[in-house]
């Protein structure tokens, strides 16, 4: 089985969010960029575990981004990816990204596409389902467990009101959430090996733009926290009922 793992470049989870150019662009200054945690911790590591067990022959990494993505791609290779491809374009919207990934997966005959359940910047949960829609293959959404037996996958995933265990034959797309695998830290050997692993750069397909961000806003600052004495909890109950009107 050939697995394609999609990685997205996101700001580190501790980033203080701000915007520039009249709140139309994210302020990347002094921001550390990382592999989207869901892509790295769950999708990539689970794919690598399958390879280590002899269940997958190849784990490739794909990113849609400009040359500043190379650092996170190298990290994915240091963790254990075999090779990588970068689609040389600014990731403008989810459909654009999904179309690039889907076309590459079809052309290169990948059996499975792995990615995180969402990115921590745009929180769309869109790319996985779109890739499945374009490829017309089953979509294992929000999976927390995944096992492979030849070409047949068994997965547990979140559905409204519970969990569902499903069985599906490759090809498929899977979006990974917590529980799939444990995060790994690349070791020195992996980092050295990653230096010589290939990163192929390809040009994007023309794809229509379905959405764009007009501008951003920051949440309205809270008026301030009203402190209540620890021995006066009845006052909190009263405020929640009469002032906040939430109970």
């Amino acid at each position, binding site marked *: 089985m050939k697995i394609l793992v999609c990685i997205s470049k996101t*700001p580190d*989870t501790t*980033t203080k969010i701000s*915007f520039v150019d009249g709140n139309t662009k994210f302020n990347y200054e002094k921001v550390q960029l990382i592999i989207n945690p869901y892509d790295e911790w769950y999708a990539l590591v689970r794919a690598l575990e399958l390879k280590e067990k002899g269940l997958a022959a190849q784990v490739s990494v794909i990113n849609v981004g400009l040359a500043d993505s190379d650092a996170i791609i190298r990290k994915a290779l240091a963790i254990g990816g075999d090779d990588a491809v970068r689609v040389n374009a600014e990731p403008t919207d*989810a*459909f654009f990204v*999904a179309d690039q990934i889907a076309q590459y997966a079809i052309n290169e005959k990948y059996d499975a596409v792995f990615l995180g*359940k*969402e990115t*921590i*910047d745009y*929180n*769309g*949960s*869109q*790319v996985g*389902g779109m890739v*499945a*829609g374009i490829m017309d*293959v*089953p*979509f*294992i*959404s*929000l999976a*927390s467990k995944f096992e492979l037996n030849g070409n047949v996958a*068994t997965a547990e995933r979140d*559905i*409204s*009101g*519970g969990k*569902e*265990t*499903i069985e*599906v*034959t490759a090809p498929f797309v899977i979006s990974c959430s*917590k529980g799939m695998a444990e995060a790994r830290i690349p070791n020195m050997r992996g980092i050295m090996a990653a230096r010589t692993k290939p990163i192929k750069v390809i040009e994007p397909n023309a794809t*229509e733009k*379905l*959405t*764009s*961000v*007009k501008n*951003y*806003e920051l*949440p309205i600052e*809270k008026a301030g*926290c*009203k*402190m*209540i004495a*620890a021995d006066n*909890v*009845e006052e909190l*109950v009263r*405020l*929640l009922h009469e002032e*906040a009107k*939430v*109970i």
Partner: protein
Amino acid sequence: MSVLVYVEATDGKFKKPSFEAITYGAKVAAMLNVEIHALCIGEVSDDELKSLGNYGANKIWFVKDERLKNFDPLVYAKVITQVESQTNSDVLVLIQNFNGKAIAPILSARLKAGLISGAVDLPLMSGDSFTVKKNVFSGKAIANYEMHSAKKIIALTSNSIAPVATENKATVQEIKIELTDADFKLKVKEVVKASCKISLADAEIVVSAGRGMKGPENWGMIEEMANILGAATACSRPVADINWRPHGEHVGQTGLTVRPNLYIAIGISGAIQHLAGVNGSKVMVVINKDAEAPFFKAADYGIVGDVFEVVPKLNEAFKKFKSGN
């Protein structure tokens, strides 16, 4: 042209997120001066389907097919695209829950329709373009998204709009869908219903606790508070990581994002990653022994004190309040 809202019933009953989605769809339809259709897949009584009309739906369609009993996003998307075509709908509204997150992007790819997942407000319309607000950076910012495509899909975040009941009569009708056995590529082996009574993602009140609880054996008082208030329970990431609580309860940047009306944080310091998952909450209460805990800066009401003293007293006060109402 019309608006189509896809809703789901749980055990044959519609819950608040469905009524919110219908209300949202009805408001969008009113802005466009078009009809609003509702679609439901599966076994739901006629009366229950009619209840969607109370929130503004003009025509309610249901699909009955034994093979659709279990959830498969690819097949459900196929059903919805057929209904979309038969009802001539250009705007689709779904709920941004686990199933919505799976179906909506497939629909988007199929229909070449722009998708806003996690909308928190009604669209602003200008010509053919919609601008919709959505939370980004895990709740640390809001983006105004523009949709340029002719067809548009909006997946609505729960608790973003209040359901509005209207005097409205709707028709309920079955709609025929063409599906072949080859469409069912996914075999469902088992479905386990969530054990908690109230789903965390949809809960109006969430009681959440963190490392300040000192150990999993102390969660009795947290569950008690949730019971008294009819709330769901949640926890911070460290607590889920050391297996004091199930992963499904973890809220924060890498866990679940919640936006209840009331979020009560007990023994949680309020790291930026945790705040990212909860700061959409309307009212936040923080109880922590450390007056310097960063969570107080984000909170509306705070109590500095030992949780093991404050929480039992607060539970008594909540109980007294509930019995008096």
